[in-house]
């Protein structure tokens, strides 16, 4: 981490708040009526914590099966998420 406090005062502060966007697709986007959720988690946050927070803020997600992608790759529950990451919820795929 070469950032210093003067470059960007928020980086590295454990209580820094930064808005993040979560992409939705297909049936999931239809169910929630939008293709992008915005939320404001306390950083740092893991994939599992993010999922919990999403479900508590959007209860419509609770009965839904989805995997989480971080920067366009399926992520493990334990993986940490950074504010600049691209997050997407991937409902069961049906391509082909």
């Amino acid at each position: 981490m070469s950032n210093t406090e003067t470059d960007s005062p928020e980086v590295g502060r454990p209580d820094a708040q930064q808005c993040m966007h979560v992409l939705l697709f297909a049936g999931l986007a239809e169910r929630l009526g939008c293709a992008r959720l915005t939320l404001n988690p306390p950083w740092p946050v893991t994939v599992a914590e993010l999922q919990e927070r999403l479900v508590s803020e959007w209860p419509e997600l609770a009965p839904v099966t989805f995997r989480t992608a971080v920067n366009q790759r399926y992520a493990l529950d334990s993986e940490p998420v950074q504010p600049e990451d691209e997050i997407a919820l991937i409902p069961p795929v049906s391509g082909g």
Partner: protein
Amino acid sequence: MIHVTEDSIDLDAVLRAVEGDGEGAVVLFVGRVRNHSREREVTQLDYEAYRGMAESALAELAETALRDHGAQRVAVVHRVGRLKVGEAAVAVAVSSAHRPEAFETCRWLIDTLKEVVPIWKKERYSDGEEWVAEHP
């Protein structure tokens, strides 16, 4: 040739993409829109993709096919948008020196594509529509 595209799939181009003088065997799989599904009449199909992730997932599958499955060349094209009955939704072509590798790799690619690549289809019927959830 690894694409997610709105255009109709040019199967000839897909086949040409895996041509090479050392490859004796080519296997092409084409997935087409059927006129029925789970006992309902399908009128058309909408495909949606998380395009960036879908293309990198396909590229990763192709790399694995070349590295671990004995394929010489691989091409995968998936169409998105609105498709009519009979149109090709996906084409997977594999060439290899001998036929077992071409068959097995092509089969592995389409099977794995259907499990992991973030593309979704919504079937439209005369009396409604439904997102298909094949691999939860």
